[in-house]
């Protein structure tokens, strides 16, 4: 039995780097410090494994040799006139770099999962910039934390514990004592309410109910760190917040612009905006202006709902406006552990963060046209390579239909809905568990992923498989060029 320390978790954009993995032989038997998502991955990753290369023959997926699967993949990519290479967010930066080379070689479109995650955020950042920072700054200094359209309790379970409200910073204290007190008083109040209802003591009932309304302000003492959640429904994160504002679905843009107006001291001639009373917005605006360092963490609640890019545009503009009065920052809550890395590697290699089209022989970027969902909806692509992703389980139906109509190559460590629909399946290793590499945390901090156990026989790292396909593609193109030259001679 051995303990591997300081393992970086390969699940969400938090990339927690304090994970301890207990290994017996070549099996992970326990994991310490991980959240429910991280623990589930470390303990279950090997249960639905893709162990052999497969190709579709006569309508069925059958086992084959690695050489044949690589050869078939290369043939599909060379024969295609507009292939898409999609995924990349759950693999290492090293593999993404090879993927970009492959996309250029085959003249395809390379897109990563930010296209259906924070793609609109990237577009808005390109329009209006970003006032960013690392998560360490927030941990130690932020006294106002706003989660807008995101639910870290479910999607980034250790975000609050490691980086924001529930962490002990150098200049800011953790809120856990306050939260415990609140949960305790809430549960006591509920018990008393039940007793009062049973004993039909109306006066006692009214007093307890009135107490709940008065209690709301006790958390908002000026010197304490505060948490605000703005969302369309009361999530688990909202339960931990000092302030929860429920916005109507698709009305975030209006609320953000109303806040901008209030911050400029303008009066609003309405009673509510996007389902939120103007008094509550005024209170939030005061809180924002009055803080010493505030941050807005925003999630796909803003990028996926009506307004999309304009919602993010408004949120960043609000942050910019607030910097006239105090220090304010903004950060997207990135989903997959290396989606930020996918954007970064793509940018340093091609100049563009996602949706890069090599069909003209040089990188071209026009999300809405060169983004994978749009290409699929138009039916423009004629083959696809999917790596470290599962678009059949994540894309809208119309896009999936288009994806599976054409030859599909899948590089995956486990059996997924996409691998079941594939024409060629190449078994890979789990980056961060079986293979080392580099990942970028949501605040653009690079971290080293470790290989803590050996992969099963026959499963190769993404980077190696991509290099094999790239070599084969070049060989096929070389053969084709040689035979053309021979015919001409």
């Amino acid at each position, binding site marked *: 039995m051995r303990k591997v320390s300081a393992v970086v978790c390969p699940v969400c954009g938090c990339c927690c780097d304090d994970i301890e993995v207990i290994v017996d032989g070549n099996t992970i038997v326990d994991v310490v410090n991980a959240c429910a998502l991280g623990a589930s991955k470390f303990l*279950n990753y090997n249960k639905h494994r893709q162990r052999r290369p497969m190709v579709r023959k006569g309508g069925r997926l059958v086992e084959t040799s690695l050489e044949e699967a690589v050869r078939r993949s290369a043939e599909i990519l060379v024969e295609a006139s507009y292939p898409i290479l999609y995924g990349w967010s759950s693999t290492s930066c090293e593999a993404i770099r090879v993927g970009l080379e492959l996309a250029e070689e085959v003249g395809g479109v390379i897109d990563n999962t930010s296209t259906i995650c924070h793609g609109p955020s990237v577009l808005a950042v390109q329009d209006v910039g970003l006032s960013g920072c690392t998560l360490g700054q927030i941990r130690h200094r932020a006294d106002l934390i706003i989660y807008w359209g995101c639910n870290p309790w479910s*999607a980034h379970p250790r975000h609050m514990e490691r980086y924001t409200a529930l962490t002990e910073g150098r200049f800011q204290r953790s809120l856990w004592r306050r939260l415990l007190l609140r949960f305790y008083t809430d549960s006591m109040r509920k018990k008393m309410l039940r007793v009062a209802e049973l004993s039909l003591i109306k006066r006692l009932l009214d007093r307890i109910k009135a107490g709940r309304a008065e209690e709301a302000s006790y958390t908002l003492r000026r010197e304490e760190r505060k948490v605000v959640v703005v969302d369309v429904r009361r999530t688990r994160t909202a339960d931990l917040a000092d302030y929860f504002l429920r916005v109507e679905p698709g009305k975030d843009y209006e609320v953000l612009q109303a806040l901008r107006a209030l911050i400029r001291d303008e009066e609003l001639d309405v009673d509510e905006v996007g389902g939120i009373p103007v008094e509550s917005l005024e209170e939030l605006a005061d809180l924002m202006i009055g803080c010493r360092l505030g941050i807005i963490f925003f999630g796909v609640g803003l990028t996926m709902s009506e307004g999309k890019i304009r919602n993010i545009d408004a949120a960043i503009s609000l942050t910019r406006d607030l910097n006239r009065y105090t220090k304010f920052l903004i950060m997207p809550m990135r989903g997959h552990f290396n989606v930020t890395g996918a954007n970064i590697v793509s940018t340093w290699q091609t100049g563009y963060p996602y949706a890069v089209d090599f069909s003209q022989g040089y990188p071209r970027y026009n999300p809405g046209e060169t983004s994978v969902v749009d290409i699929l909806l138009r039916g423009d692509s004629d083959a696809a390579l999917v790596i470290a992703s599962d678009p059949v389980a994540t894309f809208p139906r119309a896009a999936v239909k288009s994806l599976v109509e054409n030859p599909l190559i899948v590089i995956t460590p486990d059996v997924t809905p996409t691998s079941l629909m594939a024409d060629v399946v190449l078994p890979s290793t789990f980056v961060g568990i079986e293979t080392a590499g580099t990942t970028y945390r949501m605040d653009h901090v690079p971290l080293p992923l470790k290989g803590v156990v050996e992969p099963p026989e026959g499963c190769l790292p993404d980077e190696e498989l991509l290099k094999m396909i790239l070599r084969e593609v070049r060989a096929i193109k070389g053969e084709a060029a040689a035979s053309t030259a021979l015919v001409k001679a």
Partner: protein
Amino acid sequence: MDTLKVSLLTGRTVNQGKWKELGKLSREYMESVAVCEMDPQDMRRVGLREGRNVKVTTRFGSVVVKAVKSKRGPHPGKVFIPYGPWSNIVVDPETDGTGMPSLKGVEATVEPTEEPVMSLEKILMRCYGGRSLGGEERTDA
């Protein structure tokens, strides 16, 4: 049978995140994502009980999932389905030129149904069919 107009939201949940790591073909994954969280009052309005099947229909398709009482209520007029192959059938693929489909705030109707919840294999064959899965011949279309 009563039909209710709602706004459909999709998103992550802890269980969806946890069980997708176990495997998307697992029973636990299906039980965590083939569900529709509804406001208890809305459920009473259309005569739905916890655990009964509900048909969610949008202009992009319809899907049958299990109705569960939302613990995040009250949120009348809004239903929530976690990300997954079931919600994908009914979300809006339109990207409005941003590359991003509209996965939240889709207009929908919900109604009780006796139809069964499709398994993942059935979804793959019926919605995206034409291929056999895992080496097996396709038998229904």
